[in-house]
């Protein structure tokens, strides 16, 4: 367990100015480096001495990684673009208001000024046993401390758990999965593009990480295609305090209509599983139905099928059901300041 909890441990710092240089550095220090974006997840790991990388590669001086531009009717957002810039950008607000709403509900103003969109989708889980340095499954051990009879597990998963019951902490991730975003990854071997939905991995696939990012790979940008531009969006986040707190559950939906009926939908729930949970079967079931109470009700019930609760997180089942209902029904989200 960590003892020293302030000041960072010593490391060699690199501030490359091009993506190529950054890729060369992560390739060179492959087995012992840390990529620093906004630093708001990174700092905790380093201050707690739970990670002691020899080299820290700071992406903040790479202009190519910052900014939002139009691309084929959609947009492309540089990985190092701060969340505040995402919230304010006219293209995001006009076409993909869902993402602007989600990003606006992250943490606090200062954190949004510094935290990046790339970091927000690449951050590690906040399970406090794991973050406290306990040697659990995710940390390479052979027990889950959050899933024992006396565990404090109010924030943990109700779906798709596999030994580990930690959840995805990100607010922007469900919005990006709903919008069918794509993640652009670069390494010494070249570029690959991964659907947002498949960027996130659950414990069944790899219990030690939250995303498909490989050592030596950098997330360079996030592309949002025109597909859902101008659809009807709904985002809602429920948390304990209206600032700082991670979602207990959040929901993102994008719905298109034709002749008063649902013509297509994307529905994604966060903080209920280790990945943003896309509800594909619910999406299929509501197509062709009117947007009304009955459809919303059915969607809510379907959404939580198969939920398994722990001692303290049973409330997440009705919470998720109700948020899904609201995401289908539409209308203004509960007021948060």
């Amino acid at each position, binding site marked *: 367990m960590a003892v020293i*909890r*302030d*000041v*960072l*441990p*010593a*490391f*060699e*710092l*690199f*501030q*490359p*100015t091009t993506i190529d*240089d*950054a890729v*060369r*550095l992560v390739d*060179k220090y492959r087995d012992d480096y840390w990529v*620093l974006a906004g*630093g*708001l997840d990174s*700092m*905790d790991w*380093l*201050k707690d001495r739970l990670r002691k990388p*020899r080299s*820290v*590669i*700071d992406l*903040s*001086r790479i202009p190519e990684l910052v900014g939002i531009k139009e691309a084929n009717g959609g947009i492309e957002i540089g990985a190092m673009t701060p969340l*505040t810039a995402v919230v304010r950008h006219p293209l995001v607000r006009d076409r993909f208001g869902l993402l602007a709403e989600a990003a606006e509900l992250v*943490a*606090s*103003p*200062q*954190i949004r*000024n*510094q935290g990046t969109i790339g970091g927000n989708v690449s951050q590690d889980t906040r399970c406090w046993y794991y973050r406290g340095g306990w040697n659990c499954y995710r940390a390479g051990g052979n027990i889950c401390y959050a899933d024992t009879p006396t565990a404090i597990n109010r924030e943990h998963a109700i779906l798709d758990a596999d030994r580990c019951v930690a959840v995805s902490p990100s607010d922007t991730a469900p919005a990006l999965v709903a919008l069918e975003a794509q993640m652009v990854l670069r390494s010494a071997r070249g570029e690959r593009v991964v659907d947002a939905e498949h960027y996130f991995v659950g414990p069944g696939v790899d219990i030690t990480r939250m995303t498909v990012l490989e050592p030596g790979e950098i997330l360079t940008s996030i592309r949002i295609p025109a597909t859902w531009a101008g659809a009807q969006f709904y985002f809602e986040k429920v948390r304990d305090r*209206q*600032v*700082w707190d991670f979602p207990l559950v959040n929901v993102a939906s994008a719905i298109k209509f034709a002749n008063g009926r649902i013509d297509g939908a994307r529905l994604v729930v966060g903080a209920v599983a280790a990945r943003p949970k896309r509800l594909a079967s619910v999406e299929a079931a509501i197509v062709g139905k009117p947007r009304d109470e009955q459809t919303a009700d059915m969607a809510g019930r379907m959404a939580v099928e198969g939920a398994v609760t722990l001692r303290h997180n049973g409330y997440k089942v009705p919470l998720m059901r109700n948020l899904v209902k609201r995401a289908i029904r539409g209308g203004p989200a509960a007021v948060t*300041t």
Partner: protein
Amino acid sequence: MTEDTPQGFSRRNFIKGVIAAGAVASSSAYLFRTATVHGQPSAAGAVERLITLTVNGQDRRIDVMPQETLAMTLRYKLGLTGTKIGCDRAECGACTVLIDDVPHYSCSFLTHRARGKKIVTIEGLADAATGKLSPVQQGVVDEQGFQCAFCMPGFVMAATGYLKANKNPTRQELAHGVSGNLCRCQDYDKILTALMRGAELMRG
């Protein structure tokens, strides 16, 4: 601690002295490291330790370790102790400073990132020549906005940054603007009244 401290030395100056000595010792270690990184020729992007920071309008040449946070540099290298460290975890706002006019938590920001940027701390708000307080500072004095005031510099910096972007906020908007700052004495209503007064003074 007090017994060991030479007469006439405040505890704070004593600590500063110790830290300065530490900086000297580690900068000599640096001399032996400049040319190589892990025994290999310096790679593109490796940082130099001797840097220039622009703080409150002045260029300051200082030796900064790679792992130093801005809050540490400001307080313990530059003696700007108006910036407070409450949580050191991006969870309270006491350390808020402006970096290129935007409020940031300096406890969670590497000093090396601030190279080439304009840093403003609470010490830099008043007019350097006349000592005249900034509008937000004056609002705080007028309305006696704080109790113990540990959180005050952070609130003042957050509000100053927010008001640069939105000069005419409603009370609700300003509350949202400074929602990244906590007050342990918790009279948020009074704090907000003081900051609204600051906004008014800023508009003139």
